[in-house]
């Protein structure tokens, strides 16, 4: 379980604009929550507070009931999976070495690491024999992101943070990976936070969606509630855009049938 309680953060003390202001978000164990918003809405800032890449100016962050400020940030991060856009794989290391990064930091035995790497590559749909010795520049964007997810899960974290993981992928690859993420999230009973600016992605993947704008949380709701009862004008406009696009597609399809 992850709790962000009344957290605020601004990057520049003199600035009047808050990156995040009085945000409270709770993610239940086993839940997949999407943080949805435009760039600059504060969603990534909120995410980084969970693994202490950032610390809030005020408020409290708890993971599994423990205040993260009491934890050593380096040790904390090794227990939390973290995936960023375009994966951030290290180009000078092979796929296997990238995936084995955290287990190595944790000084696992070589045999444990090797079998774990194979297990993870299989989990994310990459045949270990083919891929373990490849280098990142020999992979497609989708494959790289699969390796990124495998790397994040290497040390068996119970929490997974994803920061726009599918943002740079083509639509077909993206939809495929979204499905994989949902499956892995369920199989491993992870507690997952997904940052995205893609309304459809948030609605189709998440158990609950947190809509953010200008550092504030505007609504927290299941996709169904969000569509049916937007909390304010901003959320309503977002919902309208999706609805409009959907209607246009329907209209196109009908005209094609005629």
């Amino acid at each position: 379980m992850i709790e962000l309680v009344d957290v605020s953060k601004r990057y520049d003390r003199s600035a009047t604009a808050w990156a995040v202001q009085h945000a409270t978000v709770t993610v239940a164990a086993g839940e997949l929550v999407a943080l949805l918003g435009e760039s600059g809405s504060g969603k990534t800032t909120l995410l980084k507070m969970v693994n202490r890449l950032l610390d809030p100016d005020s408020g409290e962050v708890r993971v599994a009931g423990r205040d993260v400020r009491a934890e050593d940030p380096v040790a904390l991060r090794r227990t939390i999976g973290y995936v960023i856009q375009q994966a951030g794989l290290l180009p000078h290391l092979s796929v296997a070495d990238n995936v084995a990064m955290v287990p190595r930091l944790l000084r696992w035995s070589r045999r444990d690491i090797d079998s774990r790497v194979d297990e993870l590559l299989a989990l994310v749909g990459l045949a270990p024999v083919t891929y373990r010795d490849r280098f990142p520049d020999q992979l497609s964007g989708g494959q790289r992101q699969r390796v990124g997810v495998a790397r994040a899960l290497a040390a068996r974290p119970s929490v997974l943070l994803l920061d726009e993981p599918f943002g740079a992928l083509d639509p077909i690859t993206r939809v495929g990976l979204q499905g994989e993420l949902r499956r892995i999230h369920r199989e491993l009973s992870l507690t997952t936070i997904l940052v995205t600016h893609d309304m459809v992605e948030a609605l189709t993947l998440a158990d609950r969606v947190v809509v953010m704008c200008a550092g504030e949380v505007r609504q927290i709701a299941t996709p169904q509630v969000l569509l049916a009862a937007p909390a304010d004008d901003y959320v309503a406009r977002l919902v309208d855009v999706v609805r409009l696009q959907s209607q246009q597609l329907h209209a196109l399809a009908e005209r094609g049938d005629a």
Partner: protein
Amino acid sequence: MPDAKLPGVLDVGDAGGSGGLGELVRGAAPLLASHLVLVLVALAIAVAVGLPLAVVLARRPRLAGPVLTAAGAIQTVPGLALLALMVPVLAASHGLGLGLSSFGFAPAALALTLYALLPILRNAITGLRGVDAAMVEAARGMGMAPRQLLRRVELPLAAPVIAAGIRTASVWTVGAATLATPIGQPCLGNYIFAGLQTRNWTMLLVGVIAAAALALILDAILAATERAVSRRPRGNVGVPGAAFAALVIVVIGLLPRLLDPGVGPGVGPGVGPGVGPGIGPGAGAAGAGPAAARPDAASSAPVVARVRVGAKNFTEQYILAEVLRTRLAQRGLAVDVVESLGSNVVFEALRHGDLDAYVDYSGTLWTTQLARERGAPSWQILAEVEGYVAKLGVRSLGPLGFQNAYALAVRRDTATKLGLRGLGDLAPHAATLALGADYEFLSRREWTAVRTAYRLGFGRTASFDPALLYEAVSRHEVDVISAFSSDGRIAAHDLVVLEDPAAALPSYDAMILLGPRVAGDPRVLCALAPLRGALPVDLMRRANLQVDHDHASPRAAAAWLLDHTSITETCVPAAPPRP
């Protein structure tokens, strides 16, 4: 002259012509070795200092600016000047508080280290700053501690840029290291300086080509190492790795020899091992005691394993160093010659015991050490100079018998046409004439004195390498040159030396100076004291001309000189002392 004839010296293979190519190449090997060691030591220190500094600075942009500016400023100092500057710096700071010598290896390595620092620093900082921020963020988010982040992510990703900086530095350093010769560090510059001065183009080319080849090979080895290490961690590190390891082993093997001031590889052109012909091996071991001890007075019996003879960077000095070497070797002393030294460096080196003997000129010390602005009778200059150096623990063995004075010379046709006999006759014509001078002359007190005394305002002045001055005046590129009175080329080029009735220029009696280590050594005194008054100017001129004009080696000219002078031995017997 019982001892003047030196059996064997004239039979030495390099006696004629410019010295065989094979001999030159063989002689280049120890120079190449000490050149390589110098470069690798400087690079190693620069990397050891530069990389950690770059890591610190990459995270502190405000500090990085000033440090890079300072390193850039060092870079703009001409190599020759930077190397020469390290001599007073090390002397004044007592070797940076580490007791490093201010002569030879230490100042050369220090200057080259500073020289190599900029490309290493700049590339490392640029490389570290250029590491993809997302990559660093991802690794941090995975749970890497700052040190792990540096070692596993930032340094490997910046490695190609860092390596490029080291390669740039290595090529620069190989080139700049040739300038270590004037501060007493044997290197390929010895061939370049001596080849230029004695117009031995083969020697010059061997030096230049060897330096260029060294730069290219070093660069290729570093490139191969970089390729093997940076990209694929378990790639083929074998061949370049082995090459690099071999280099390191060679350096470690040679380093102790270079750092021990007593056994520097005193190599010069056409110069064999330190022991002269006819002398049994092991003679130098006669005084194997603590050579580092510096006797404060001539009374104590000093024991020096090898005598270090210095030479400035012109022909006469090369010949005289060979004369000293031959005489010392006859007394059973092992000799190293360190040549092509800067004239500012050589006296300081002698005074501090880094050199033991060389020939200087009374007028030079009169103007540079005693800072006198006006000339004086030659006996007075000699007496005051000898008294002055004695206070510094340096002993003069008296005048050799010739002067090598600064003089102004003109072509015979110029002298005839303008009716020039003395410097005073120049004044009315000076505005239409061009003066060519060696690098030093125009900034020396002698020039100020002459210019003031005779009201000389030349239309144009130009600086030349001394080796090129005589040709420049012969080819009408200039009309008047600064010449040296013992230079055989004055006569060879049919030049007229203008008289100095006002005695504006001091006299320049050549004199042997002994450093504190050997000032009281009877073997050294027996070998060198008899040279007093033994070298008349016409003999010296002819010996100089043999090298400058006939391309004889300095060693051959020295042998000729000793063969044609008469020396009265003061110690009997002149044979090597009992072991």
